[in-house]
């Protein structure tokens, strides 16, 4: 117990890194995910193929492999990347694929009849999107979006393997010196649990709200 208290400052630093990683990567993933979803829905053949290839890779390759690739391969090519920026980029790019699935699914969930009703009164595609379809799609997208965020937060723990001092890395460091795995990793797990559980409550709330649309 004393050990835990003594470790708090270190763990706190790790938590801070984890939070930064999660927030920044989430922003990258959301923006890129939207772009990919739009490419799939409205893009020409080339864009759609590129998007599909991107999704196929992200679905088939483990995040850890991508992080290693970034960590080892980029310096080899002469590109020096800070672990933090690199981590944000790789995690963001990886989860952008899942975000794209969420957004595309939400757009497709809006009934075709909504598009037709908009066209029937003479609206054009941009107006139909902004006024009619997107408001409905966003409501549907809420819960799966939050679920993907939870996966992303858990995914940030992998940066510990490439030496970035997130809370998991700090935990492992402390263990190797002091051998109190239950307390320390228990605390580390608790940190993630608090964040993810809070997110999942948001998701449950959004789920209730989403059902009013239909």
């Amino acid at each position, binding site marked *: 117990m004393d050990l835990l208290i003594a470790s708090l400052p270190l763990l706190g630093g790790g938590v801070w890194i984890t939070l930064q990683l999660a927030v920044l990567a989430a922003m990258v993933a959301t923006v890129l995910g939207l772009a990919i979803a739009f490419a799939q829905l409205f893009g020409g053949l080339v864009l759609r193929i590129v998007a599909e290839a991107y999704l196929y890779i992200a679905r088939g390759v483990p995040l850890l492999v991508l992080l290693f690739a970034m960590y080892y391969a980029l310096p080899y090519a002469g590109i020096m990347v800070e672990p933090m920026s690199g981590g944000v980029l790789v995690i963001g790019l990886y989860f952008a694929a899942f975000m794209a699935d969420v957004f595309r699914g939400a757009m497709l969930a809006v009934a075709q009849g909504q598009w037709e009703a908009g066209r029937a009164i003479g609206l054009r595609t941009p107006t139909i999107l902004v006024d009619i379809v997107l408001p409905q799609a966003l409501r549907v997208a809420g819960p799966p979006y939050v679920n993907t965020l939870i996966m992303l937060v858990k995914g940030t723990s992998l940066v510990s393997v490439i030496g970035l001092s997130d809370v998991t890395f700090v935990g*492992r460091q402390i263990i190797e010196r002091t051998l109190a795995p239950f307390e320390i990793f228990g605390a580390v797990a608790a940190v993630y649990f608090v964040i993810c559980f809070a997110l999942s409550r948001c998701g449950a709330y959004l789920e209730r709200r989403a059902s009013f649309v239909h």
Partner: protein
Amino acid sequence: MSSEITLIGRIAPVLAEGLYMTLELSVLAIVLSALWAIPVVLTLISPRRPLALVARAYIEVVRNTPVLVQMYFIFFGSSILGYRLTGFVAGLIALTLQNGAYIAEIYRAGIQSVSQRQTESGLAIGLTPREAFWVIVFPQALRKVVPSLANQGVVIIKDTSLVATLSVAELTFEARLLVDRTAAVYEIFLTLALLYMVITGVFSGLMRLVERRLRIVQ
């Protein structure tokens, strides 16, 4: 040209061993998770409130913490308790606990999607509630959940890469070793990525076949 052949000659056997380990781990984790999820889901939907709550708590804890942390917890925790587990076993247990929870939820969704009327028909012809469940509800639920199970299987295969952090000689671990030794960074990581895509691709393809088979039977 010959240097490339030597390179392949050095890399291939090592990666092959890693591949074997990854496949072994994946198959075990998938099977064990799918099996472990059965008692979990039965507890989850049990009418006895305290039991259901325990299952719910387990699922929530496991789903809201990273599997990597769970692996460390089990691996390092086991040595303190005196029963030192190998990285392989610790990783396997963590993967099973984590994915068992997700699969239990998948089972639950499948079961609850089978209409109540099915159970009622079963009871009406004289089956006990337990018989009605196993004979009528469970097979139908199973067919409905195959796509979600396929997804979870892919997740499991990818997560086996994490046991590299516990020095288990699977694919990712061996690849990293090779990079240190041969400095053929691009080739190795490219091959690594391709291998994973092939494994997950083949697995997904198999699951689609299973899905089609089940649908024909129905």
